[in-house]
C-alpha cells in the first residue's frame, strides 16, 4: 500500500512537470496579453514598457524557470485580470464547480443505476429498448444542443428555472459560498446540473446494463437463484456489487470528461465556476490564470485516478495495488 502511494506520488510529480511545461509552452499561442490590457491608441513605447515589466521579453527558459520556482512554493503567478494570485482566484471559483459537479453526479447515480439495472433484468421489455434508444441519442447529441434545448423549454417557454448565473449564495461557516442552501441558488442549479447529467448519464446506463447482464450469467448468481434468495437481494446486492468494479474505473476516467463538460456547461449557463473562468481567461489572454488552471485540473486528475485505484482495491480485495498500479 505504502509503496503504491509513494510510486503514485513520484508519478504524479512527473505528470505535473509535463503539464507545467505544456501549459507554459502554449501561452505564446493564445495571443498577446499586453494588447488585451492596453487600449487601441496606446503608444508602442508604453506597450514595450508593460511587456518589459511583465517579463514577457525574457526567453522561454527563463520565463519557465521563474514560473517553476514560484510553482514549487505554491505561487502559480498573478492573474492579469483579477490582479490576485491565480491559485486563489481558481480556488474561489472551485465551490461553484464542485456544487455543479456534485449535483450532476448525484443525478447520474440516482437515475442511471436503476435504469441500467432494469434494462439488464428485462432486456427485451419495451421500456428497456426505449431506454437504450434514448441513451444512444443522448450519447450522440452534443451537450450544448441539450443545454440550449433545456433553456428554451424550461426557462424561455415555461419560466421554471433561470437561464444563467448562480443566483444567491449563502455563506456556510465562512468557508464556502454555497448555492445549495437557498431557493434561488437551487433554482439556478437545475438546468446546468441537468444538462451536465444528461451528458454523462447515457454511458453509465449502457455500462451498468452490459456489466449487469454479464454478471447475471455467472455461476454464483445461478447458485443464488437455486438457493432461493429473493430477486431483490440477488439483483441489488450480489449482482450490482460486482457490476460496480468496471464502473468505478470508468467513473474515474469520466472525471476528466466531467471537467471538460463543466467548461462547456458553465460557458453556456454563465456559471461562475472554474470552467467559465478558464474560457474567460483564454479570451482575455490571461496567461498566468490559464497555466494555473491547467495545473490545478492536472492535479485533480492525478488525485482522482489515485483515489479510484484505492477504491478499486477496497471494493475488490483480489486486486493487489502494488502490482496493479504502475
Amino acid at each position, binding site marked *: 500500500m505504502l509503496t503504491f502511494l509513494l510510486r503514485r506520488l513520484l508519478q504524479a510529480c512527473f505528470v505535473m512537470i509535463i503539464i507545467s511545461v505544456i501549459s507554459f509552452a502554449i501561452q505564446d499561442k493564445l*495571443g498577446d496579453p499586453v494588447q488585451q490590457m492596453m487600449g487601441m*491608441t496606446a503608444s508602442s513605447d508604453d506597450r514595450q514598457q508593460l511587456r518589459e515589466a511583465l517579463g514577457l521579453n525574457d526567453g522561454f527558459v527563463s520565463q519557465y524557470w521563474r514560473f517553476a520556482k514560484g510553482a514549487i512554493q505554491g505561487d502559480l503567478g498573478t492573474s492579469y485580470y483579477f490582479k490576485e494570485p491565480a491559485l486563489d482566484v481558481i480556488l474561489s471559483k472551485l465551490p461553484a464547480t464542485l456544487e455543479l459537479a456534485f449535483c450532476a453526479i448525484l443525478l447520474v447515480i440516482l437515475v442511471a443505476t436503476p435504469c441500467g439495472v432494469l434494462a439488464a433484468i428485462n432486456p427485451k421489455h419495451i421500456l428497456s429498448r426505449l431506454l437504450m434508444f434514448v441513451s444512444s441519442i443522448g450519447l450522440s447529441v452534443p451537450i450544448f444542443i441539450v443545454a*440550449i434545448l433545456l433553456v428554451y423549454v424550461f426557462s424561455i417557454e415555461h419560466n421554471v428555472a433561470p437561464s*444563467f448565473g448562480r443566483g444567491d449564495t*449563502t455563506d456556510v461557516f465562512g468557508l464556502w459560498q454555497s448555492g445549495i*442552501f437557498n*431557493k434561488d441558488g437551487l433554482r439556478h442549479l437545475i438546468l446546468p446540473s441537468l444538462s451536465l447529467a444528461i451528458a454523462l448519464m447515457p454511458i453509465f446506463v449502457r455500462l451498468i446494463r452490459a456489466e449487469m447482464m454479464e454478471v447475471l450469467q455467472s455461476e454464483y448468481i445461478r447458485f443464488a437463484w437455486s438457493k432461493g434468495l429473493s430477486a431483490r437481494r440477488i439483483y441489488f446486492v450480489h449482482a450490482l456489487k460486482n457490476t460496480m468494479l468496471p464502473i468505478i474505473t470508468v467513473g474515474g476516467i469520466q472525471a476528466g470528461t466531467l471537467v471538460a463538460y463543466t467548461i462547456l456547461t458553465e460557458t*453556456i449557463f454563465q456559471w461562475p465556476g472554474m470552467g467559465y473562468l478558464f474560457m474567460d481567461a483564454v479570451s482575455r489572454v490571461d496567461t498566468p490564470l490559464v497555466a494555473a488552471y491547467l495545473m490545478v485540473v492536472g492535479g485533480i486528475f492525478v488525485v482522482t485516478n489515485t483515489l479510484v485505484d484505492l477504491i478499486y482495491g477496497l471494493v475488490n480485495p483480489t486486486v493487489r495495488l502494488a502490482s496493479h498500479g504502475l
Partner: protein
Amino acid sequence: MLPNGLLAEAVCGLGFFLSPSSHFFNPSYLHVFFAKIPFHLYGQDYIRSFKHYSVIKRRSIMKVRAFFIYCLSFLIYQGADAATLKMAFDADPVSLDPHEQLSEGTLQFSHLVFDPLLRWTKTGKFEARLAESWERIDDRTMRFHLREGVHFISGNPFSAKDVAYTIQRLKRSPDFRAMFDTISSTTLIDDYTIDVHTTYTNPLLINIMTYVFPMDKVFYQGQDQIVKYGSTFASRHVSGTGPFKLTHRELGSYMVFERNPNYWDTNSPGNVKTLTITPVRADSTRLAALLSGDVDFIFPISPIDIQRTQSIPGLQLVTLANSRILLMHMNQQRRAELQDVRVRKAINLAINQRLIVEKILKGYAMPAGQLSSDRFLGHINDLAPEYNLIKAKQLMAEAGYQDGFRLSMMAPNNRYMSDEKVAQAIAAMLARIKITVDLKTLPKAQYFKAFDDRSADLMMVGWQSDTMDSNNIYEFLVACPDADTGLGAYNASEYCRPSVDEDIRLANREMNPERRSQRLQQIERTLYNDAAVVPLYWQYLTWAAKEKVNIRAIVNDQNYPYLGDLVIEE
C-alpha cells in the same frame, strides 16, 4: 395567487428555519431586509453589531426570528422590485480605475459612477454636466465654469481642483495619453472656474473634454498610481459624483449599483434604484436571459436574432447607426500587386458592400464607400459604395492580372458582429475577379497580435474614432506608419502618401470649421482615388429590453447608455 405564493414562502422559510442560523447573517440578505431604510443607516457597523448579537443570543430564538424576518423581507422585497434594473452587456470594466484602460466597458462604467464635464447627446451636440458652460478665451485656451454644490460619494465637495487633478492624471495614463498630450496645462481661476491650455491650437479640445470624469482628489491623492497589472487603490476603490454608487462587485461575474441618494442632477428623470450588470459574452445566453425574464436590458443582439426579438410581445428593440467603420486593409509592402492602384480599385469594385449588409447583417449596418460616417466632418455625400464586376475585371486585365493571383487574408471571428461570415463573403467575391483568397479567421486575442505583425495581405479591422472626428481615423489607419509619432499604428495597408499626412497635420490645427471640413474631405477624396483601403460598413448598435424599460431615451451611438436618466415605467 397570493395564498399560493405565501404558502410557497412559508415552506421555503421553513427550510431556512431548519438550516444553520448563520445564513441569516449573510450581509447581502440583510441588504434586502433593509431595502426601504436609507443605505447609510446600515453600514458595516450595523451588520457587525448584529453578528455580535447572534453570539450572545440563544440559537433557537434566533431561528424563530430568522424565520419571521425572512417572510417579512420577502414582502418588502416585492415592493422594491419595480425600480430594479438587471442588464447584461458584452463588455465590462477591467478595473474601477477609469484611467487604467480606454475601452467601452470602462467608459460605460465611468458614466455610472462618475460624471463627465460634458457629454454627447444623441444628435451629436454637447450637453453640460459638471461643467455648466464653457467658452473659448483664445486659440489655445478654453474656460470651463463648473457646477457648484456637487459632492463626491465620499462626501468631499467637488471643485476645480478635482478637474485639474483628473486632467493631470489622464496625461499620465498610457491609454488616454494619446488624446490628452495636447493639453499643456490648466489654470485655476477660482473654485469653480478652470482654464485649459493646449500646446497648439486644437479644434477638438471640447471633444476630448468629454473624457474628463472628475475624480475625487482628496480621496485618491497619494495612492493614485495607474498600473496595468497588480492591484492599486484606484483599481479597488471609487469615489465619483455619478448617479450610482458601486455596492458590490464580483470581478468577471457581476456588479451591483445603488442610486446615489445625493445626486446633484435633481432634474434627472431616472428612477432606477438598484442596478445589476452582468457581463454575458455568449450571444445566445444573453438573449435567452432576456427572453426568460432574468434580465431586463441587453446589448448587443446578433443580426440573426433581431427579427425574432422584434416579434416577441413585451420586448423592444432599439438600433442606432454607429460611427465605427469596418474596413479591409490591402498590404502594399507585402505584395507588389497591391501597389498598383488598378488592382486596389478592382478589389474595391468586386466587393459588394450592400449585399454583405443585406444578407449577412440583415440590413443592420450602413454600407460604406468611405471612412467617415455622416456625422463626421470628413464625410462626402456622393461617395457611395460601388460594385461593378465588369469594370473590376477590366482593371485587373489592364494591370496584367487577368489570370489573377493568390492573397492571404485574416479576420477576427469574435470581435465584430458576424465578422467571420463577412470575411468568407469577401473571399468569395474576390474569387470572381480570379483572386484566390486563403482566409484564416482567429479569435480576437490572437488576431490583433497577427494584425500588429502584419501577418496577412488582407486584414479586417474596425475603428471607432475616440474624438468623434474623421481625423482620428486617418491618423491611425491611413497615415504613413511612423513608430516614433505613433501615426499609422493600424495602417496594415502600409499606404503612405505624404500629402495626406500633411493634410492630417493641418486639419489638427485648423480652427475654422468650414476650412477644416474641406481639408478632411480632401483627405477622404484622396483615399478614395487611391483606393487606399476597402471601406465595408458602419455596423448598427442594437439593444433590446423589456417594454417598460424606456431605453430609447438613454442610448446613444457611442454605446454609453446614460443609465442615470433611465426611466422604468411602473
